[in-house]
């Protein structure tokens, strides 16, 4: 292709100018950070705490309280957006630039492994260790990578089985028991059970729960996929079968949290798997038909409570922080009982300290707490892997195909296994 002579120098200049700026920006990903992790361990001073949108206004009062007590080590609150992807990208951008601006960051449980593997998070051990006594075990697991704690659990979340008290006097303990009760739904001409089965993150949650509840697991202790097991197959098959025989209504294949909540609230479902937020809406919304008949129970499992997927956030210290001693103190402050209680009462955030779930005052306000505790105690963190985007895609795509009857659960799981293997094999 001929280039007009007069354009060339101009175009080249433009390109050069930008390439230079790209180079100056420093390059790409790199691991390590060994030396960064050793630095500034005893240093104190003002720090910044980064977190997504503080919708229920719980973080600000806590920071004010901290600042009043620590005038020389004040915390500045940097509020991110409401969107998880944007929060993630903002953290990546700042860590990549080795920015000391972010001292303590709130990380979603599914990012912890990625950030830890990039060498961006300060291992919370030795000098930087925190006291994890009293914390629910699964929340600690969710904050750990390769056996080391990288992020202190601050809030948690788990699935709850909502049911119709008027139709089901005692909630089912196991999946089979629940399926047995589906005849009640049929008699009343409503759907039996639903979770979230649209092809999105919620399906990863639901499929993992099915697999974990049946005794299988997505990843083993070493982070390797372990899906070619009879347990995993039985778990996924539970959902496949329920779709096939109509115990899960066909339209559930398009459900996210909201669609499933609406179906339940409109009285179209006997059982619903969803998050704690449903409680408030289902008991207060004017159009709710289940206001007075709402029951809550732990998710059903194989022979006892099932294994919920775990949500929530943890607090991590950046390896680039200039004041790690202060940062650590602030993290410890966030997980103290008093603050945890405040999170629960003000923000309806599930605490990570087991004792609080029996606190009379809290339970009066949030009646789902005892059920939620069972749920979280039995919870399995979503796969802890630095390749979470690839792993969740592998689970979603294949589980979705199985639920739609496009391939047997066994094949879906073996494809899941293979996909996850390729994700981690890039090195």
């Amino acid at each position, binding site marked *: 292709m001929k280039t007009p002579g007069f*354009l060339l120098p101009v175009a080249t200049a*433009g390109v050069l100018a930008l390439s230079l700026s790209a180079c100056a920006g420093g390059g*790409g990903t790199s691991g390590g950070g060994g030396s960064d992790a050793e630095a500034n361990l005893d240093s104190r001073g003002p720090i910044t705490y980064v977190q997504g949108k503080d919708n229920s206004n719980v973080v600000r009062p806590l920071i004010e309280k901290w600042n009043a007590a620590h005038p020389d080590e004040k915390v500045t609150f940097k509020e991110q957006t409401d969107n998880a992807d944007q929060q993630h990208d903002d953290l990546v951008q700042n860590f990549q630039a080795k920015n000391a601006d972010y001292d303590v960051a709130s990380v979603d449980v599914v990012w912890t492994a990625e950030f830890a593997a990039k060498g961006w998070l300060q291992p919370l051990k030795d000098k930087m260790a925190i006291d994890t006594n009293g914390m629910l075990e699964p929340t600690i697991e969710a904050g750990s990578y390769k056996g080391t704690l990288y992020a202190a659990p601050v809030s948690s979340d788990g699935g709850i089985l909502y049911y119709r008290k008027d139709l089901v006097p005692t909630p089912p303990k196991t999946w089979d028991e629940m399926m047995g009760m589906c005849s009640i739904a049929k008699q009343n001409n409503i759907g039996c059970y639903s979770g979230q089965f*649209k*092809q999105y993150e919620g399906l990863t949650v639901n499929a993992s729960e099915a697999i974990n509840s049946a005794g299988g697991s997505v990843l083993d202790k070493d982070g390797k996929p372990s899906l070619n097991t009879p347990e995993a197959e039985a778990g996924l098959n539970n959902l496949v079968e329920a779709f096939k025989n109509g115990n899960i209504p066909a339209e559930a294949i398009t459900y996210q949290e909201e669609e499933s909540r609406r179906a339940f609230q409109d009285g179209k479902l006997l059982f619903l798997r969803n998050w704690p937020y449903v409680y408030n809406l289902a008991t207060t919304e004017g159009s709710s038909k289940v206001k007075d008949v709402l029951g809550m129970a732990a998710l059903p499992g194989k022979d006892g409570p099932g294994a919920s997927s775990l949500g929530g956030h943890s607090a991590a210290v950046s390896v680039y922080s200039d004041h790690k001693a202060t940062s650590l103190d602030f993290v410890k402050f966030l997980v103290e009982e008093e603050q945890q209680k405040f999170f629960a009462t003000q923000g309806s955030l599930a605490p990570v300290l087991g004792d609080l779930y029996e606190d009379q005052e809290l339970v009066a306000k949030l009646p789902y707490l005892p059920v939620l505790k069972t749920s979280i105690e039995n919870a399995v963190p979503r796969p802890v892997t630095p390749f979470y985007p690839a792993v969740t895609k592998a689970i979603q795509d294949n589980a979705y195909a199985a639920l739609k009857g496009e391939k047997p659960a066994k094949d879906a799981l073996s494809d899941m296994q293979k*996909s996850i293997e*390729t994700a981690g*094999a890039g090195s």
Partner: protein
Amino acid sequence: MATELGPTPVKQPASGAAPVHHGPKGVGEDNKILSQGKWATWLLAPTIIALAIVIVYPIISAIVMSFQKDAGLDPVTGLFTDGGPAGIQNYVNWLGQQCAAQGGGTVACPPGTLGGQFWTATATTFFFTVVTVALETVLGFWMAMIMARSFKGRGLVRAAVLVPWAIPTAVTAQLWLFMFDFNGIINKLFNVSILWTGSEWPAKWAVIIADTWKTTPFMALLILAGLQMIPAEVYEASKVDGASAWQRFRLITLPLVKPALMVAILFRTLDALRMFDLPYILTGGANNTTTLSILVINQIRQGFNSAAALSTITFIIIFLVAFIFVRFLGANVVEQSGATGKGKK
């Protein structure tokens, strides 16, 4: 709307915004063109520089990135390490749907990986393109022929067709998502219970319907503009000659509108090949509605360099389609738009 070709531009010396000083009268055309060329260089420079920065630089940068490996995990420390040069491996992986295997080498990408979706995404993209452009052309032609007639309220119709075009695609997608809801108006109106976003064909048709709604007006307006350039006498003459309506359409309307039509189809085709907003919001790419653009976006957070290779492939595909159009199907956009020089005929 003026129907004649653009006026010939260089009859007299221009001045004003950018005074052009031609050589003294009587100097040969060559010289004149030379001096205009100099001016043109200065006038075009800002645009060319700007486009070099916002387009040429990213392309080059993407190509450079596409020859790099994505960061991998060190199996001992569990930490990420830089990937290093990859040669053409990223391209080979996409085109051959190969994924990294444990212990080195590659294996065929299993279902549930982005790599395994390349050819289905390509097929989906072309399927959407062919179906939507075909539908839009036929519907657009029909709408244009109606709007070309004179009837009361024609202005209203012409204004109304601009409404779908003016609504941002992101809003369009939310609107159709809402209407395609299981409990939504569409199922109610047609008394069906279709899970529009729940299985492959309904999901595909949902995207096609929404896209057709949104972009047919653009097509219709382009065709209408072409129709209006056909002199009414041509029709009358053919009527006197006893041509049937179908003959008139086939022998007069179609050939005369063809240049405008080809350009309209080219524009729409290239636009459809990069479709993103609608399926991304409407279906999230589920049920085989992942287009190449969606695949690139999904890949970005799984690895920049591999995504760069994929975006380069996408770019090449679109470039090839444009090339074929211009070269073999006679959609000569440049001549259509740059008719100045040749418009003197």
